[in-house]
């Protein structure tokens, strides 16, 4: 048993740290560190820098622009990015559609899409969920009907994250209405500029525009945009989702937020008192911290197993990381909300006080971040779905 990383892994970590320190935009990190919304350009700035370094898609197959990273390297990279409050390479490109095209796409699709997907010249969004197909994704109803060299798509997608920034959308569509549920689904790539597509914003509970509805009204897509075989889309989607769960616990984010909570709690209030001196508060803080530490080790145990077997195969235990990781992140936003108290009740609070004091830069986003982070236990397969997965795969129910 050995807790430490190897010398090579430590050297890699130092290289990542050094790169982040010298090359990464500080303004983006500042926004992230204060739980503020990022703009399109913020994501692009970070992603492009990583792309130039060869790190945006380092986990892709080597022949497709990957760097053959080990699971541990991939973990270290994620931890360091989160520790520095930076957004990961755009998930839709790097972890979702990119690997699907790399593994299942045609030669032409690889040539056309892989490079701009890796470099974020194309911004992708995900067209999976529908109003009637959330946790029960396979009940999706959007249809694609073959008409000569084209498919004609009709239907509606929803919860399309950052769809208003996107150039292309990858969709699950029903190509065989008579087949049983999962069997009749295909995976297709659609240009967002195609006539018949309409994107409408959904404003979420914290008041931000992050997700969208996407409507398809007789949208004609070249048949060559279908990935892999017709009616095998469900298999590709499962492959994609297994990639999505990698690093889903986002322990680096939880740790960074705990550090901030501690800093804020140690700052004296108007009466010169510190919340940190309240034993009840510290007891709550410690309970969350010990659970985060346990989850960090759980993640490393799963990682060490993958590394030992030299495998990227999805471990059903990653469902555990999703459940606990989301719960703990939510716990950290809850603690922040408590620290801010009534001072954190308005998203415009920064404008009002204009103290010029950076100590209070965080106040305005506290409640928004708390509201927004409730999504964590819902998306990516809700925590209840993750319980179902563990019930089947581990408990054998």
């Amino acid at each position, binding site marked *: *048993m*050995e*807790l*430490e*990383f*190897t010398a090579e*892994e430590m050297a890699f970590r130092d290289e990542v740290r050094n790169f982040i320190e010298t090359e990464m935009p500080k303004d983006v990190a500042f926004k992230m560190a204060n739980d503020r919304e990022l703009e399109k350009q913020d994501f692009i700035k970070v992603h492009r820098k990583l792309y130039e370094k060869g790190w945006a898609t380092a986990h892709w197959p080597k022949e497709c622009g990957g760097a053959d990273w080990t699971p*541990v390297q991939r973990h270290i990279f994620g931890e360091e990015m989160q*520790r520095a409050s930076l957004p990961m390479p755009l998930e839709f490109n790097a972890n979702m559609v990119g690997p699907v095209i790399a593994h299942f796409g045609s030669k032409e699709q690889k040539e056309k899409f892989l490079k701009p997907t890796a470099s974020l010249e194309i911004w992708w969004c995900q067209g999976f969920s529908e109003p009637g197909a959330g946790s029960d994704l396979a009940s999706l109803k959007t249809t694609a009907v073959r008409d000569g060299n084209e498919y004609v798509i009709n239907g509606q997608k929803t919860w399309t994250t950052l769809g208003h920034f996107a150039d292309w959308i990858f969709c699950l569509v029903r190509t065989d209405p008579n087949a049983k549920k999962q069997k009749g689904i295909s995976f297709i790539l659609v240009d967002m500029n195609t006539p018949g597509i309409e994107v409408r914003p959904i404003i979420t509970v914290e008041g931000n525009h992050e997700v969208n509805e996407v409507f398809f009204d007789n949208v004609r897509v070249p048949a060559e945009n279908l990935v892999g075989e017709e009616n095998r889309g469900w298999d590709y989607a499962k492959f994609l989702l297994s990639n999505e769960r990698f690093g889903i616990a986002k322990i680096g984010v939880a*740790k960074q937020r*705990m*550090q901030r909570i*501690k800093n804020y709690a140690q700052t004296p209030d108007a009466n010169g008192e510190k919340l940190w001196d309240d*034993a009840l508060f*510290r*007891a709550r*803080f*410690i*309970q969350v*911290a*010990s*659970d985060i*530490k*346990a*989850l*960090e*080790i*759980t993640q*490393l*145990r799963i*990682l*060490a*197993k993958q*590394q*030992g077997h030299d495998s990227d195969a999805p471990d059903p*235990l990653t469902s*555990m990381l999703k*459940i*606990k990781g989301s719960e703990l992140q939510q716990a950290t936003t809850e603690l922040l909300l408590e620290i801010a108290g009534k001072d954190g009740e308005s998203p415009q609070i920064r404008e009002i006080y204009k103290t010029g004091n950076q100590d209070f830069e965080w106040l305005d986003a506290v409640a928004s971040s708390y509201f927004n982070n409730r999504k964590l236990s819902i998306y990516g397969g809700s925590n*209840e779905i993750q*319980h*179902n997965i*563990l*019930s089947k795969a*581990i*408990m*054998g*129910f």
Partner: protein
Amino acid sequence: MNFDLNSEQIQIQDSFARFFADGAKKHSRTLKNSSNNSSELCLAAAEMGILAMLFSEGNGGLYSSPTETMIAMEEIGKSLCNIPLTEIAYACRILDKSDDFVGKDELIASIISGEKTIAIAFDEFNNRSNGAIVKTNENNGVINGVKTNANAGFDYFLINAKMANGEIGIFLIKGDANGLHIKNYITHDTSAKCNLHFENVAAVKICTDAKIISYSADFATIALCYEATGMMRMLTNLTTEYLKTRNQFGVPLSSFQVLQHRAVDMLIETEQAFSIAIYASLLLDNSDVEARKIAVSNAKLRVNNAAKFVSQQAVQLHGGIGMTDEYIGAHYFKRLTLFCNMMGDNYFHLNRLNLEKDILEI
């Protein structure tokens, strides 16, 4: 980074699993009289080399890392074998690092061989300080006071006592010393315990170094946590199997989603507890004492929470049968309940973390 046991440790694990499962035939905590003739169990454990693993080479032992002891503790937990290895380990780790005293080498040799037994006796009645405050006192080598929850039938005890200068020292006591009156009793988890009443009992001072005492306490705390994770693993498995075989409403209980999810939560708690116990065990011999203390208290807190959840839900999911003395799960439940109070309860460890300068190491 690697969390696998090496091939030697895997062999040790196999042989310990057999040894404690075998020992549990006569000494399972499911049996009212599991502590009868427990000295033969201690002797057999010594012959397995389990006591030698607690002493360094310089003292004639085989200590290489905490891991070997942790493997033993996990198997003790799984098998419900009634052997107080935590209290033994606590005493042995102190003795291994103690001052020299007349007869030390011979004493250690006799403990390693199993000829003699030793355990700590630190508890006192109505005193929840986990060793921080001690009423038992020592004056000119003579002890007066009362220790509770000591392991009955042991040849030697290490006790902590307040010395004339106000500091706490560790003293070696013979179980049959003059002036020592012993009252035996059995606890809910079938441990044979006793209260030690000291009336001018002669004792040998062996250690006054608070660093050694706190290291040994931390070692024993994590050892106990491993026993608990072993129990939780068994209890989760037992519950999972029960849900699959018990039929109600014409279907197995495992077909009900609410019960499936509860069982998954038991698994998650068990894995989280195991993770943090591993982490703390790997920091026990770390030179960074503060990091060790934080890791150990974090671990005990986290494992306590898991122990409560897993043991309570195991009883709940078993229904009426979980309430019966006949059912093995009920005995895991009892031992895990007492576990939460041993080696510092949540209040103790929360307070200890509160005293550390940097609770959150990042």
